[in-house]
């Protein structure tokens, strides 16, 4: 049995904002729709930016990708600020419990010296990769077009800062809060020959002008390989070496990657569905950055996982691209 509280019902004059109604019809809208569609200013800008006088403040020509409607880039997760922070707050609560448990039980004591060294040399430098990803996603948020895609880039950019901070915390757990492990990881990043091609890749992505190409270089190519190599293959290897507890500290990254991959793939699908030109551009960018990423990752992956490592990551990446509709 249900009970029904009587409230006074007033007939509304309209169901939603007029621009939402023009897109979706005269019916109640979701919070994602009202927070997203047509919020960005599109015309009659007053001044050209002093820092880029050939463009308008908001200008779709900051990428070679073209769209009739930039709001086709609907986020399958439907993240607006409120749903985004609430979803991430749940994830961080889990992560916080994991980190607290790991520290309370002093689980780092069970990690052998070799494993600890491996973490410092091969996992912690990724904090600098994440920092690059922060820059690159904020870049796409600042210069991209249409709230649907630019808000998702900002969320992604902030996520990457968070992951850099989680990785740093792993270091602090290992070194007892002295920061030594982070220093060592940074020297590896700066000077160890195994990391230099990776550092080159990162530095170069921050000088690319086309924001969609930045997205391809970072979120599509590099992230796909890095998250597979480090958070799947290396994780498994460390687990085999008796360090399965470490998985508690990197679970956030795996969960995050799963969530984000959905969005990344949908962006690709939408862009290539629009035109063959878009598809060609995207395939060229992917090929270009895939070649560079192979150079960037090979020294590390060969040392860590042998020849098969990067190949396995690339195979899994290729499958994903085919599924999205690229290179076929």
């Amino acid at each position: 049995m249900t009970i029904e509280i009587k409230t006074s019902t007033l007939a509304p004059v309209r169901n939603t904002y007029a621009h939402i109604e023009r897109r979706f019809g005269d019916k109640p809208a979701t919070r994602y729709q009202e927070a997203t569609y047509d919020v960005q200013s599109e015309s009659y800008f007053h001044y050209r930016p002093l820092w880029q006088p050939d463009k308008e403040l908001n200008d779709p020509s900051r990428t070679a990708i073209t769209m009739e409607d930039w709001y086709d880039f609907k986020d399958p997760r439907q993240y607006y600020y409120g749903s985004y922070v609430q979803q991430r707050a749940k994830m961080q609560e889990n992560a916080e419990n994991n980190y607290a448990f790991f520290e309370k039980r002093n689980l780092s004591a069970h990690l052998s010296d070799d494993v600890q060294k491996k973490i410092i040399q091969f996992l912690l430098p990724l904090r600098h990769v994440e920092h690059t990803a922060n820059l690159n996603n904020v870049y796409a948020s600042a210069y991209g077009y249409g709230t649907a895609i630019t808000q998702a880039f900002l969320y992604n950019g902030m996520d990457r800062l968070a992951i850099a901070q989680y990785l740093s915390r792993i270091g602090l757990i290992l070194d007892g809060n002295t920061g030594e492990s982070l220093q060592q990881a940074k020297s590896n990043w700066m000077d160890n020959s195994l990391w230099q091609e990776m550092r080159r890749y990162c530095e170069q992505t921050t000088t690319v002008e086309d924001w969609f190409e930045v997205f391809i270089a970072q979120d599509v190519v590099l992230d796909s390989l890095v998250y597979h190599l480090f958070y799947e293959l290396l994780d498994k290897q460390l687990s085999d070496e008796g360090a399965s507890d470490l998985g508690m500290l990197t679970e956030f990254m795996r969960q995050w990657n799963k969530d984000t991959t959905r969005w990344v793939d949908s962006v690709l699908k939408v862009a290539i569905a629009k035109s063959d030109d878009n598809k060609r551009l995207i395939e060229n960018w992917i090929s270009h950055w895939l070649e560079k990423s192979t150079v960037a990752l090979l020294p590390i992956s060969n040392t860590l996982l042998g020849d098969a490592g990067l190949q396995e990551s690339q195979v899994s990446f290729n499958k994903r691209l085919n599924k999205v509709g690229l290179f076929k």
Partner: protein
Amino acid sequence: MAKKLNIKDKYRLLTRDLDWAYSYADRSKAFPFEEFEGIKITDWSKWEDPFRLTMDAYWKYQAEKEKKLYAIFDAFSQNNGHLNISDPRYVNAIKIFLTGVSPLEYQAYQGFAHVGRQFGGVGARVACQMQSLDELRHVQTQIHAMSHYNKFFDGFQDFSHMHDRVWYLSVPKSFFNDARAAGPFEFMIAIGFSFEYVLTNLLFVPFMSGAAHNGDMATVTFGFSAQSDEARHMTLGLEIIKFLLEQHEDNVPIVQKWIDKWFWRGTRLLTIVAMMMDYMLPNKVMSWKEAWEVYFEEAGGALFKDLARYGIEMPKYADVIEKEKDHVSHQAWWTFYTLGHAAGFHTWIPTDQELDWLSEKYPDTFDKYYRPRWELAKKMADEGNRFYSPGLPQLCTTCQIPMIFTEMDDPTKTCYRDHVHNGERYHFCSDGCKDIFCDEPEKYVQSWLPVHQIFQGNCGGPDVADILSDFYKMNVGADNLDIEGSPDLERWKKWQNAS
């Protein structure tokens, strides 16, 4: 036992150490906009983080706030919270907010994403990125807060389309376009310091207190929820100015010029707040003049005393502004009243009680200059001749406000300034606006002045009514005109009778 880290060291390890010196790419290509304004940064590591929030803590706090905020929004709409407002006239204040201010929050999101990518120092970048995310929060929560009002009142429905086109909305829009079109450091002085730190109390507080005094639970709850974000933004604004002034003495005159410019731009923008406080709130919070005295003259005065040790002086024309506080709200509401047919909200003549309140709050000016106008307007309206001005106003090229302001020493004389640039004559409402133009004429000749655009035929027409309905997408006869006879008021009366 692990050693305990203090917050500063922890934040340094978790955030500040993430960046590095480039070896394989030209770093000035990655951060290309840092030098052209002439600002000298000798050492980004001297940046003092204004707040040290890691992302996990950010998500946690903000999610808590969002949960509470949306619970109130849901309750508000479920219970027809709009019936609890003081008077239907009030809703017009938040129509101005949604069409004029919320899109600025969006531009703040974009501007802070831009500087949050461009600054060479990681500490400054991350602080700006967080503000960018907060600003996105503000525009979206405002859209959601007003969503319920949009279902029951006219004038909210096309806020984004209107913001890009409507004549008076080009005032706030161009203000933020100006800041975003500037270099990254000027943006920070314009928005981070001048606006967020010095003037925000005169925008945010009046609107939110207005909501509190007028039974608008949705808006005031948003206001409370955004307070802690605003506090963070203010500390960032203060840090940026101290950082720039401490980095190099050559920065001082550049920063002073920007303070002069943005203080003037800001006070012009606040004209609309002045009018809202004095005329649009059925339950008054305080007069504009009082707000100006508390939040600028006292609080701002103390701030500028503090900055004097760096060689920073009170903004230019602060003395003119001190006189303007007695006039601008009256001059602005009169303008909207007489152009009420072309506004996206309703206008009205103050009640007798309100006229008395204005006389009391403005003893030196109201009875002498402004009350007689309202008495005449009332007489005309009573005779069936509600006055609307048929012409379109001339706009100031810089602030884009109609040329409505008077000489402050002679309030019967309109203030006109002009300047010839490349053979064209440009018009200004004040010396402040003229100075800004003359300093960067190439920027301001680009201004998209709505009235000029209308006369050039770029906004449809030919009649004003066509422009309103076709180009602005206003529902003519519903969104505009006097509140007397408006559908808003008719519906309100029906709801009152029904309950």
